[in-house]
Every structure is written in structure tokens, then in C-alpha cells.
């Protein structure tokens, strides 16, 4: 994590950018002046004729400090420390020479000074520049040192602020014509571009400290007031000193200081220091009030968001409540031990209890005693939903109603099941209709069969001569009547079978069965019918393994196939074959009749399908026979399919699994 750097994506890098720009500018000033010294360019060294020169060492120090600011801004800690130490050393060594009036030989170590200033040793930078360089070097080192103290940035910031003040004081001296402000005592004065450079250096150090503080705490540093006050106070002290013509006592003036002429400098000092204090105090107050305003704003925003969320939630709740209130179905919530908590108008209508009568009561008051409550609650506790549980409930008046219940667990935020919601849908009318349908089929079949039985029976009695002798013509007519009553009987049976298939109530009674006798039975019924029509009737039944089947139902299937074959074959032959196969028995009923087209193939086993041509139209039939046959064979775990071409006849093949006595399931069939 970078504290100073501008290279990282740091949101507080504006201060660091300013610092880097200052560093670059100071380094540029230093380089230009060094170039000026090397090329003897007076303008670069003095700026204006008669102005003090920037010494070669000062220019070097500017290059070092400028580079130090850049490396610090780039968060290169080691080079920054090195450059800081170097700058500090140059400044400190120069100050040492002033204080102890000695010559360490550092002033002209790189270049022999060719400008004689007359106020100090040749090439020696001014004490104020040396002071500024020392503090800047210390600032750079302290920026990368970073002690564990929370407000450590205040250290470099204070150092930087003093540096700024030294630069500003010198600038004020130039602008206001007070030489004492840029030339301490009568020693080497600070050049004008040195003053600018020093101000920039101090600004750069403060900027980097600010950046580090912001990176740490995400807000403007708390020591800002201190820095502002320090700048003003230092500038004031410098100006006071210049005006009073004094010199720092340690700097051993070469010329005695003149006696102050007035009290003006002292007034300036007092006013300046007071101003510094006031400035510090107001900056501090400003910061505090700004922080307060900001936290207030944040609190306001949070509060506003909370209110909005509440409003939305309340709207949602109202909408849900409206849904529950307007539902036709009964919707109720219960605790996990079955106490009713909520009760909607749908529940009032369905059960007849008002809200006040049931809330707090046990939900079992609604159960007709046949509701497996324990199992339901076990599922709920596991977080599972109970869907469409059809059961009987009791109303307030004790009426039994058929309901479909959907019971869902209600979870709290941690996903724990805390209560249950029940939606009860009234299915009484649907159940009633189901029962009526059942009864209707039974009634209709009874009502149709009873008169038909009488018709058939009496025709038979007359035709058989039980009621006296009959003529041949009478017998022929009675046979026509009998045949038609038989057709009616088949039609009724087909309709009832269809109804059973559709309501999935077609039952078969499987028992070990020898198909040979079943097929012989069928053949004997239809042999005469085929021959009467002039068709050959072929039978080929090999010995067959036993199957498990309902003989009456299988006779129904094969009779249907053979009678169809005879019906739809104008000439040629019909036949019935049976062979044993690996899986069981395969029975084939074939004919040389009209056959089936491709489309007819596809629709053959659909309800009420009948062929399209005249033979079919004459033959009659309900179109239900094959559908019923397929359902019956399906219930025997067998298969029925057909091969046919128009004009070439049809071949229906029925396969049934062989009986495996040891491996039969509960329904009597081999388990697949």
C-alpha cells in the first residue's frame, strides 16, 4: 500500500502530484543555475544584475532536494532517504561553518567560485538557504521513516512549513525591499530564485505529508492548523528580525547590529504571532465543523435510505396483504405446533369461522380426523413443501368439505423453519363431479343393459321356439333383430371400457393361462362367420408357453382383431397364427383385405378412428375396438402393432410375455 505514491491508483494523489511538480521545478532551477555557473551565465546565477547570486552548492542542493521530492512522490523510499541525508549534510555542514566560523572546504569542493560576494567565504551559500536545505533534508528522511505514531505526518509537515516560511520571508524581503528578510545579518543573502525554490521545497514536503495523512485517514490532516500557524509565525519572526536588524545570536554577526529605531517591529511581531494563533484556531475550527457537517450529511443520507427502504417494504407488505385478503382460497398461517396465527376472508368463507373465533386455536379443529398431521409436520420441519394434499376438512357447521392443501414452511432470515402457511382450495364440487361421473357410467350401463337384455332374451325365446313354432321368414327376421341387439351390446361395452381406460380404472384379472384354448375359443366363434362371407379361415397355433392373463379380456382383444379382419376383407382369406418366441408368445391376425394407408396407420390406435372408404362405411363399428385392445394388451405388459398396405391386407401382431412362476410381481406379472 503506497502512502506517498502517485504511481498507484491513489485517490489522494493530488497533493503528491503538487509535490512532484514542485520537486521537478526546484530540480530544474538547480540544474539551470549549475549550468549557469559552468557556462558563466550571469542571468542564470543572479536573475537580475545586482541581485545576490545563487551559490553553486545551493543549486546542487536544489537538484538533490528536487530529486528527493520526486523519489518520495514515487514512493522510492531508499533513494529518498539517501537524497535527504545528502541535502541535510550539505545544509548542516554549511551552518556548522557559520556557527564555528570555520572552513570545512565544502563550499568550493566541486567548482571554484569566481564571484566574490564580500559578505562571506567564496562559494558559501547563505545561512537561510543552508537552514532551508537542512530542514528539507530532515523532512525527506522523516517522510520515509514513518514512525508508528498516528500523527507522524505532522513532523515532516512542520519542517516543510518552516521551510516555506523561510522562502516566503525572503520573497517578501525582495518584494518589500527589506534586505534583512533575505539576507540574514550581513552574511550571504538568499538569491531570489533560491527563495522561490525554497518555498517550493517546503510546499512539496507539506504536500507529501498531507498525501500520507490522507492515505491513512481518508480526510484532510488534523495538523493543518498547526502548519498554517507555523508558517505565519515563522514568517513573522523572520520579518521582525529583519526589521529589527538583528541576527540569530548563534550566527556571530561580522558587523554590529544597529539599534532598533522604533517599536514597529515589535508590534509587527505581536500582531503576526496573534494572527498565526488566530489562523491556526480558525483552520482547526473550520476542519472540525466541516467534519461535523460531513458526518451529519452521511447520517442524513443513511436515514433517508432507511426511510425509503421502510416505505418500499410497507408497500410490498400492503400488496401482499391485499393479495391474501382478496384470495378466493383460504390462506392461513400456523405456528409449528399448529396454532392458527392469521386467517384471511377466503378462510372465513370456506370454513365459516371468523378471524376472532380461530386465531390462537389449534388448526386440528379443521381436520376431519383423516389428515396425517404428524407426517405433514415432519415434512415441514425438514423445510419441505406439502403440495396438493387432497383431504377432507370440517366447517364450522360440521359440514365435510373436500380441500386441496398446499402447506409451505415459513423461514426466518437464518433459514430456520418458524411457522407454516396453508393454502386451502375448495375441491368439493370437483370431487362431487367425479363421483357423479362414476355413478353416471354405472347408471347408464345398467339402464342400457337391462332393456337390451329383455330385447335379446325375448327374441331368443321366440326364435328358439320356446314360445311356439316359428316360420323360416320369422326366424330370419328375428335373427336380424338379434344381430342388431348384439351390436348394441358391443357398443355399450366399448363405451364403458373406453370410460374405464380414460379414468384409468380398467382392471384385469390375470391368471396362468394357455393361449391355445383362448385362441381356439375365438376361432370357433369366427370360423363360421368367415366361411359364410366366402373367406378362407386359416388357423396355425403351435404349442405355447403359459402366459399370465385375463382370459375374458384376451378373448375380447382377439375377437376384435379377427372380426375386424373379416369385416374389412371382401375376398381372399383371414387367419390367426400363434408361435412361441424367446420372450413369450406372438399371435398374428392377418387378412387380404383393404389394408391401411400410411396416415391411417398413425391414427389407427386413436379414439373413434375409422377407415375412409366404402367397405369401412358398410362394415360399421365404433372405432373404439383397437384402442381398447391396445389398453388391454398394455395392462398385460404386452405390445400390439400392425403392418399394412392399401389393397394388400393387414397383419396385426400381439406379443405377450411368458409366465415366469418364480419371478412374478404383486400384480402377477414378471417385473421388468
Amino acid at each position: 500500500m503506497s502512502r506517498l505514491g502517485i504511481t498507484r491508483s491513489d485517490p489522494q494523489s493530488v497533493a503528491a502530484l503538487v509535490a512532484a511538480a514542485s520537486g521537478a521545478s526546484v530540480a530544474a532551477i538547480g540544474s539551470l543555475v549549475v549550468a549557469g555557473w559552468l557556462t558563466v551565465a550571469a542571468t542564470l546565477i543572479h536573475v537580475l544584475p545586482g541581485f545576490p547570486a545563487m551559490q553553486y552548492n545551493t543549486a546542487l542542493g536544489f537538484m538533490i532536494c528536487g530529486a528527493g521530492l520526486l523519489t518520495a512522490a514515487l514512493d522510492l523510499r531508499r533513494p529518498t532517504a539517501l537524497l535527504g541525508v545528502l541535502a541535510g549534510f550539505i545544509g548542516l555542514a554549511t551552518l556548522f561553518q557559520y556557527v564555528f566560523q570555520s572552513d570545512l572546504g565544502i563550499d568550493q569542493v566541486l567548482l571554484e567560485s569566481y564571484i566574490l560576494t564580500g559578505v562571506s567565504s567564496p562559494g558559501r551559500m547563505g545561512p537561510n538557504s543552508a537552514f532551508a536545505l537542512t530542514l528539507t533534508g530532515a523532512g525527506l528522511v522523516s517522510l520515509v521513516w514513518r514512525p508508528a505514531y498516528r500523527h507522524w505526518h505532522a513532523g515532516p509537515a512542520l519542517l516543510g512549513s518552516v521551510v516555506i516560511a523561510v522562502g516566503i520571508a525572503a520573497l517578501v524581503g525582495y518584494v518589500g525591499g527589506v534586505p534583512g528578510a533575505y539576507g540574514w545579518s550581513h552574511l550571504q543573502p538568499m538569491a531570489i530564485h533560491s527563495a522561490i525554490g525554497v518555498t517550493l521545497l517546503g510546499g512539496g514536503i507539506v504536500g507529501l505529508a498531507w498525501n500520507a495523512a490522507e492515505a491513512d485517514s481518508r480526510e484532510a490532516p488534523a495538523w493543518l492548523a498547526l502548519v498554517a500557524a507555523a508558517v505565519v509565525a515563522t514568517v513573522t519572526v523572520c520579518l521582525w528580525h529583519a526589521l529589527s536588524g538583528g541576527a540569530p545570536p548563534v550566527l556571530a554577526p561580522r558587523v554590529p547590529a544597529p539599534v532598533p529605531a522604533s517599536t514597529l517591529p515589535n508590534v509587527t511581531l505581536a500582531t503576526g504571532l496573534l494572527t498565526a494563533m488566530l489562523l491556526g484556531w480558525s483552520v482547526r475550527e473550520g476542519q472540525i465543523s466541516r467534519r461535523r457537517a460531513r458526518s451529519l450529511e452521511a447520517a442524513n443520507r443513511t436515514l433517508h435510505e432507511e426511510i425509503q427502504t421502510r416505505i418500499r417494504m410497507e408497500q410490498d407488505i400492503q400488496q401482499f396483504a391485499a393479495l391474501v385478503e382478496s384470495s378466493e382460497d383460504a390462506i392461513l398461517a400456523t405456528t409449528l405446533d399448529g396454532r392458527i396465527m392469521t386467517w384471511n376472508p377466503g378462510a372465513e368463507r370456506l370454513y365459516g369461522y371468523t378471524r376472532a373465533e380461530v386465531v390462537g386455536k389449534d388448526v386440528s379443529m379443521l381436520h376431519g380426523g383423516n389428515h396425517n398431521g404428524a407426517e405433514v409436520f415432519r415434512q415441514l420441519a425438514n423445510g419441505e413443501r406439502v403440495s396438493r394434499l387432497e383431504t377432507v376438512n370440517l366447517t364450522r357447521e360440521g359440514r365435510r368439505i373436500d380441500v386441496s392443501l398446499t402447506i409451505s414452511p415459513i423461514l426466518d432470515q437464518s433459514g430456520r423453519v418458524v411457522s407454516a402457511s396453508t393454502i386451502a382450495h375448495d375441491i368439493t364440487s370437483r370431487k362431487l363431479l367425479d363421483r357423479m361421473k362414476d355413478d353416471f357410467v354405472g347408471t347408464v350401463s345398467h339402464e342400457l343393459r337391462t332393456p337390451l337384455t329383455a330385447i335379446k332374451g325375448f327374441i331368443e325365446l321366440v326364435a328358439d321356439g320356446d314360445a311356439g313354432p316359428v316360420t323360416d321368414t320369422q326366424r330370419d327376421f328375428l335373427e336380424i333383430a338379434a344381430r342388431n341387439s348384439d351390436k348394441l351390446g358391443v357398443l355399450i361395452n366399448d363405451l364403458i371400457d373406453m370410460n374405464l381406460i380414460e379414468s384409468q380404472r380398467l382392471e384385469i384379472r390375470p391368471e396362468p393361462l394357455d393361449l391355445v384354448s383362448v385362441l381356439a375359443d375365438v376361432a370357433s366363434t369366427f370360423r363360421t362367420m368367415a366361411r359364410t362371407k366366402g373367406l378362407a379361415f386359416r388357423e396355425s397355433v403351435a404349442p405355447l408357453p403359459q402366459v399370465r392373463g385375463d382370459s375374458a379380456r384376451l378373448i375380447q382383444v382377439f375377437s376384435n382383431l379377427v372380426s375386424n379382419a373379416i369385416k374389412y376383407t371382401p375376398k381372399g382369406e383371414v387367419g390367426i397364427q400363434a408361435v412361441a418366441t424367446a420372450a413369450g408368445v406372438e399371435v398374428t391376425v392377418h387378412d387380404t383385405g383393404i389394408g391401411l394407408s400410411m396416415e391411417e396407420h398413425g391414427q389407427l390406435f386413436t379414439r373413434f378412428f375409422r377407415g375412409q372408404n366404402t367397405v369401412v362405411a358398410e362394415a360399421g363399428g365404433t372405432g373404439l375396438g383397437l384402442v381398447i385392445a391396445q389398453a388391454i394388451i398394455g395392462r398385460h405388459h404386452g405390445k400390439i402393432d400392425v403392418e399394412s398396405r392399401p389393397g394388400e391386407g393387414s397383419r396385426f401382431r400381439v406379443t405377450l410375455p411368458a409366465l415366469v412362476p418364480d419371478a412374478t410381481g404383486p400384480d402377477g406379472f414378471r417385473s421388468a
Partner: protein
Amino acid sequence: MAKILVAEDEKQIADMIVFKLTNSGHEVRRAKDGDEAMILARLEIPDLIMLDAMMPGLGGFEVLRQLKADPALRAVPVIMVTAKGHERDVLNGLRGGAVDYVLKPFSLKELAARVELALGKDRPPITL
């Protein structure tokens, strides 16, 4: 020549069956509902009983149950006559101890043949 009780609420059907069985040489008693059938059965102890499944009052299956519960009557073979196509009706009849069932509409010749067959045997109630 056997004594046969026919319980059938539809008068024409009963007439028809009685006519046929009388012509076949049997002595036939008729009951128009279940209660009458029970009274006649206890009074006469017939050789065979034909029961219509759907009758007012005592239904055919209830009569069958009472017959099989009566030690004096439980050996008498019973043929159920039903107009309902439901398999469970047939199963109820056979489980209850009927020897045979005839589905309406039926052929009188077949009915007569089944009667002759049933007169040759009787069955106790079985469990399917």
C-alpha cells in the same frame, strides 16, 4: 329338475329367465328384491340361486353375504347377474362365494347352460 330361486327386480327380465328355465324343466321361484329373496331362500332351500347385483333394498352382494353366512344356505350355488361393467363387481361376487356371473345383456341359451353347469358343483367362499 331342480328348484331355482331367481331374484330380479326388473319384471320383464325375471319373466324371461323364469320362462326359459321353466321350459328347461326346472321349478322356479321368483323374488322381486333382496329381502324377499332371503325369505324365500330360507323357506325353500333352493338348489340354485340367481341374484341380480342391483336391486332395491338389500343389494345382490349383501344377499350373497347373508346366504354364505347362513349354515343352512352356504352350500347353495349362486350365480350373480350384473349390468355393471366394473371388474370390481365381478370380483366382489366371486370373492363372496358366487360360482359364476353373467353380464347383462346375456344370451338365454348361455344362461341356461351356465345354470346346468352350476347345478353340478358348488363352491365355498374363496379369497383371491
